[in-house]
């Protein structure tokens, strides 16, 4: 079914948050934290816009809209609306609405609240672009935008070094993965010739048949795994908890970290259902699930517990996506929906507790249920969904995913066991988050806890109630959200039939019961478990987080070493490198292609031409045998003058004139530099160094000669010459074509040139004025700029 073209409203919906980001600081200045109310209208409207797609999409329709962005590269700002992108867009804008409200309450009175709103909106726009973009390159741009905005948000509290480090770490990991993704996209584009996702999806086997499946798979995985914090890249997500809680709730549970999962789901018809896919994804997803839950149990900080379970949930999603089994994929979609709702709510609840009680440590919290009844109710609803108990959407998701893993023919048992263990531990965390702070005796907290304002509890309540509501109307949920999304994953229209209550006493129900029993058992032993896991971790000692620091230190050390090696402050080293590379650049292509220019036969020179040629050669010989430096400099001038004479004889008087002046000034200035630097009058280099520089000089000379010969043997394109010859006199009133070009036809070029001359003058002046330290030889002024200018002027 080909996508229908729609108007540009959806494109504007993606850009709307960026506009809101501009307005946010102003509104915040006027209305203080209450600016959240008008600002939340923007995501609410976006939500309404995408809600309009629910009906048509559930009938299997898809839509595209497109605007040219950089048409010469085939880059368009285009959107593709189907089940998957609609679900994500609804999650982003819907949860985003409440996050904005929550941020209004959470950062009340913060001096930089306006900036915070701005960053949140920028992120929202980037995320919407990520899930809606149809064009691979613009998708990548939005992908990296989410990394950059998340950097700004994590590092919002930039005075603390911990948040700076966390921000940098998230940026390096996710940004680096993004670059791998770009490479993957470029390989896809060059292998298939397609740049739009919708056209790729129209012929699903195009990548598998291209012969480049493996590199594409690995590069796309590099992007997805870093973004979705899969083992071994999981460490950045818990560290990102340095961010203010609204950020954690929005980016690190509901949206951004799902970006990787989104990409895997989006590419599933193209990359999935292969042996490689069904090995790598379940293995890494499974490891992530176990590692995440394992690390979560160890924590006592509410936010960190939730962060590690988020890592685990992402692992579960990747594992399910990796099965390529229809029922398991359905479980993945359901779980994605459930997870966004309960985890967003729980993060906000953790933030509210922190905000009102002054601590997030569950060992220091207790008996808050009477003080914060609304928050407590929301926490219960969300936790029950997270624990996977009926009648919540989390329960349905778990049933379906067990059904899928149990029925998966390849590695069903292993995956199922992993899922059961992970879910049991997840239940433990859910219980800990809901029970520890609210039940038991009242523990004195740093602040006298009481219920937060409407801005703070609106989000958790709505999200957790939605998790209940969607489960109560299970059939409709399946029809409107899960079915269309699953259709995107499978690449064909599918309808699902969901029930809240299990229809029969089957394997999934038994597995669920096992999960609950195991979870309850482990919860009673929570403190013991925590100590055990902490002990294990201490025994291991080294983790990817520490590895990251070592990696960064290694890079810094390497660059310092490289700088010492490349830029050692010796002029000669720089000259050898520069000219050595120049020689390689002009010689290598000819050598590699084996195409050398033909050596032209010597024409009949007149005797005076031979004479000038002889003078040039004599000048060079004089340079080589000169005893003192000054003699060498002057001899170099001789050769220059001879060349200037050649220019004169072959009809380039301007060039020749310039060459004379440049040679004269070069000799004068070089001589002055000599006296200035107090160099010894003789050259004391050891023979090997002299031979090396000689070889480099010979290489450059040979290379340039060959280049010149090759250029002159090309057929001459006289279009420009004809143009200038024709119009120089008539339009520009000048007979000297060279000069007319310089000051008139290409005047702006010359303006750039003389700006360079001014800058070069300033730089040389600065270099001369620098007090030379005794241990570092001073640089000589780059007289090459003069020569460069002279050749430019020809």
């Amino acid at each position, binding site marked *: 079914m080909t996508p229908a073209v729609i108007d540009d409203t959806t494109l504007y919906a993606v850009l709307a948050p960026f506009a809101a980001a501009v307005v946010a600081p102003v509104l915040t200045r006027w209305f203080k934290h209450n600016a959240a109310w008008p600002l939340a209208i923007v995501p609410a409207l976006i939500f309404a816009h995408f809600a309009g797609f629910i009906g048509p999409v559930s009938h299997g329709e898809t839509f595209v809209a497109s605007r040219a962005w950089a048409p010469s590269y085939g880059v368009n700002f285009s959107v593709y609306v189907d089940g998957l992108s609609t679900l994500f867009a609804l999650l982003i804008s819907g949860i985003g609405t409440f996050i904005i409200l929550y941020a209004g309450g959470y950062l009340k009175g913060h001096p930089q609240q306006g900036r915070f709103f701005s960053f949140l909106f920028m992120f929202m726009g980037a995320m919407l672009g990520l899930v809606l973009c149809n064009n691979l390159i613009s998708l990548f741009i939005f992908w990296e935008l989410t990394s950059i905005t998340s950097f700004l948000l994590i590092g919002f509290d930039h005075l603390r070094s911990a948040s700076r480090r966390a921000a940098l770490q998230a940026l390096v990991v996710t940004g680096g993965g993004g670059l791998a993704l770009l490479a993957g996209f470029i390989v896809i584009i060059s292998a298939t010739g397609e740049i739009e996702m919708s056209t790729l999806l129209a012929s699903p086997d195009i990548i598998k048949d291209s012969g480049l499946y493996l590199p594409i798979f690995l590069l796309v995985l590099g992007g997805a795994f870093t973004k979705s914090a899969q083992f071994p890249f999981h460490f950045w997500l818990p560290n990102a908890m340095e961010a203010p809680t609204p950020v954690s709730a929005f980016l690190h549970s509901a949206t951004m970290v799902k970006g990787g999962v989104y990409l895997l789901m989006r590419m599933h018809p193209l990359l999935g259902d292969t042996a490689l896919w069904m090995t790598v994804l379940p293995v890494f997803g499974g490891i992530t699930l176990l590692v995440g839950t394992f690390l979560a149990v160890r924590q006592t900080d509410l936010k960190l517990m939730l962060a590690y379970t988020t890592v685990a949930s992402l692992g579960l999603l990747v594992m399910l996506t990796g099965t390529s089994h229809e029922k398991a994929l359905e479980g993945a979609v359901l779980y994605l929906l459930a997870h966004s709702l309960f985890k967003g709510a729980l993060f906000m609840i953790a933030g509210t507790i922190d905000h009102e009680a002054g601590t997030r440590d569950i060992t220091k919290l207790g008996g808050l249920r009477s003080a914060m009844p609304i928050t407590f109710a929301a926490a219960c609803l969300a936790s029950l969904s997270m624990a996977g108990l009926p009648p919540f959407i989390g329960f349905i998701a778990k049933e379906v995913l067990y059904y899928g893993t149990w029925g998966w023919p390849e590695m069903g048992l292993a995956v199922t066991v992993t899922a059961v263990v992970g879910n049991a531990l997840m239940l433990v965390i859910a219980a800990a988050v809901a029970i520890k702070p609210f039940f038991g005796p009242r523990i004195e907290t740093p602040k006298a806890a009481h219920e937060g304002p409407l801005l703070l509890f609106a989000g958790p309540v709505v999200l957790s109630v939605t998790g209940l509501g969607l489960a109560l109307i299970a059939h409709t949920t399946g029809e409107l959200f899960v079915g269309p999304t699953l259709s995107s994953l499978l690449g064909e229209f599918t309808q699902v039939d969901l029930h809240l209550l299990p229809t029969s006493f089957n394997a999934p129900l038994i597995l669920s019961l096992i999960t609950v029993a195991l979870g309850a058992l482990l919860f009673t032993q929570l403190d013991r478990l925590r100590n055990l896991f902490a002990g294990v971790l201490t025994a291991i000692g080294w983790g990817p987080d520490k590895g990251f620091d070592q990696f960064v230190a290694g890079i810094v050390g390497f660059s310092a070493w490289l700088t010492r090696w490349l830029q050692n402050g010796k002029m000669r080293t720089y000259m050898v490198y520069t000219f050595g590379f120049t020689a390689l650049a002009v010689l290598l292509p000819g050598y590699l292609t084996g195409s050398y220019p033909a050596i032209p036969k010597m024409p009949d020179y007149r005797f005076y031409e031979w004479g000038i040629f002889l003078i040039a050669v004599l000048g060079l010989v004089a340079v080589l045998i000169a005893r003192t430096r000054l003699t060498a400099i002057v001899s170099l001038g001789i050769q220059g003058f001879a060349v200037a004479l050649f220019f004169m004889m072959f009809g380039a008087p301007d060039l020749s004139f310039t060459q004379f002046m440049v040679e004269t000034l070069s000799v004068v200035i070089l001589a002055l530099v000599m006296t200035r630097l107090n160099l010894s009058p003789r050259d004391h280099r050891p023979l090997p160094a002299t031979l090396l520089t000689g070889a480099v000089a010979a290489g450059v000379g040979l290379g340039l000669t060959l280049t010149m010969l090759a250029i002159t043997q090309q057929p001459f394109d006289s279009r420009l010459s004809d143009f200038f010859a024709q119009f120089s006199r008539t339009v*520009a009133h000048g007979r000297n074509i060279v*000069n007319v070009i310089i000051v008139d036809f290409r005047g702006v070029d010359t303006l750039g040139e003389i700006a360079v*001359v001014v800058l070069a003058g300033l730089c040389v002046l600065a270099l001369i004025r620098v007090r030379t330290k005794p241990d570092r030889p001073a640089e000589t002024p780059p007289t090459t700029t003069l020569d460069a200018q002279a050749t430019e002027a020809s």
Partner: protein
Amino acid sequence: MRTIIFRTIAPYLTSLMVLFSVFVLLRGHNDPGGGFIGGLIAASALAIFGIACGVASVRRAMVFHPMTVSGFGLFMAALAGTLSFFQSEAYMTSQWLIFHMFDVEIPLSTPLVFDIGVYLVVVGAIGSIALALEERESD
């Protein structure tokens, strides 16, 4: 270098060279020459004068710091291009004003102004390099 002969001849030589450089600059549109070459000649003149009579006297003679001259030249060249705006034409479109004085045709044009800018840039930049190199550490 500071022989009595050289010191006596240097001011005349310098004046002649500067004069010649202006001549080369102005004739550049139709004959070999132009701002760049003129500037180089004038810069050599300054260097020679500096070698003969010391940098201080050159700086006195120039009134402005050479780098100031250079910057002004860049400004002038950029400004020359803006005159075309008054004719609603693109930046750097040449404007010509040709009038007659004593039966001689005198063409004035924005490329000429531009070229004078180039000349000043080169004189200033190269001159300041040369002078700075000639200066001893003391001043």
